[in-house]
């Protein structure tokens, strides 16, 4: 009798260990998914964004002083015009002044550990598949435990509802 109780206890301990292992794995995978989601864009994409921003700013032509080309008298000196242009649109001013230097300064502090959108999508897809497979394994184990003990077992509050509601046949 004592041996039997010991065997049952050992079996339960093993199942509990398996369950803990699956839950730890789900936590790790979700953590990795969050990390990948938060990774910055790759440097090429960052450069494209910087170029786009500077090009848009340059289109505003902040240094185009009318006093140089208009036939009628302009009531603003070049100095006053530059002061007003800078106050109104610093980025436009700097982009018109020296776009290459502006780009270089903006790029100086950009992260280098970024990934491309395609790479991110691939990694997230793989992680989602792994999470789904692990959550299914967890639910199958829980249902087996419930069937053998005839007692309900708590699910994680962040468990995937689709899996919780799925019929047994779709989880095998």
């Amino acid at each position, binding site marked *: 009798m004592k041996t039997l109780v010991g065997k049952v206890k050992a079996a339960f301990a093993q199942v509990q260990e398996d369950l803990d292992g699956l839950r730890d794995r789900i936590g790790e995978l979700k953590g990795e998914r969050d990390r990948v989601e938060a990774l910055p864009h790759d440097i090429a994409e960052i450069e494209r964004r910087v170029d786009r921003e500077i090009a848009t700013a340059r289109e505003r032509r902040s240094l185009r002083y009318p006093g140089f080309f208009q036939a009628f008298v302009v009531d603003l000196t070049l100095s006053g015009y530059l002061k007003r242009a800078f106050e109104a649109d610093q980025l436009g001013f700097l982009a018109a002044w020296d776009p290459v230097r502006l780009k270089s300064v903006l790029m100086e502090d950009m992260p280098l550990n970024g990934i491309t959108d395609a790479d991110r999508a691939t990694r997230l897809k793989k992680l*989602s598949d792994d999470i789904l497979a692990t959550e299914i394994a967890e639910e199958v184990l829980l249902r087996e435990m419930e069937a053998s003990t005839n007692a*309900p077992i708590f699910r994680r*509050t962040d468990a995937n*509802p*689709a899996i*919780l*509601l*799925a*019929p047994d046949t*779709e989880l095998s």
Partner: protein
Amino acid sequence: MRKFSIDPSRLSRYREASASAYAAGREAQQDYLDRHHELGEIKAKKRLIDQGMEIPAYDRARLHGEADAKIESIGTEIQRLSEARARASELAQHHGAIAAAIDDYVGDKKQTFAHGGLGVVAR
């Protein structure tokens, strides 16, 4: 993303678990409040005993002692009920969170059906 059907027995299981945990939480809260109310009444009665001029001194001491014993016993019970209430509340929150996620999911599925379906089946 892989699609799953909905097993209605599982749907009702989670909804019932949530409803029953919520009811148990309400009951635990009510028990706790009832005992608190009772304690308040006994304390008020004790004050009346202390102030009651027509009660003989020996009777007053006896009634006072009885009230104190009741206060102590209800105090212990309130402590127990407070712990039970905390457990029930935790349980209700746990089941409530799962039921809410399930309701969201089932609601989304209904939306999906309304827009022509994406291969999901609600049985």
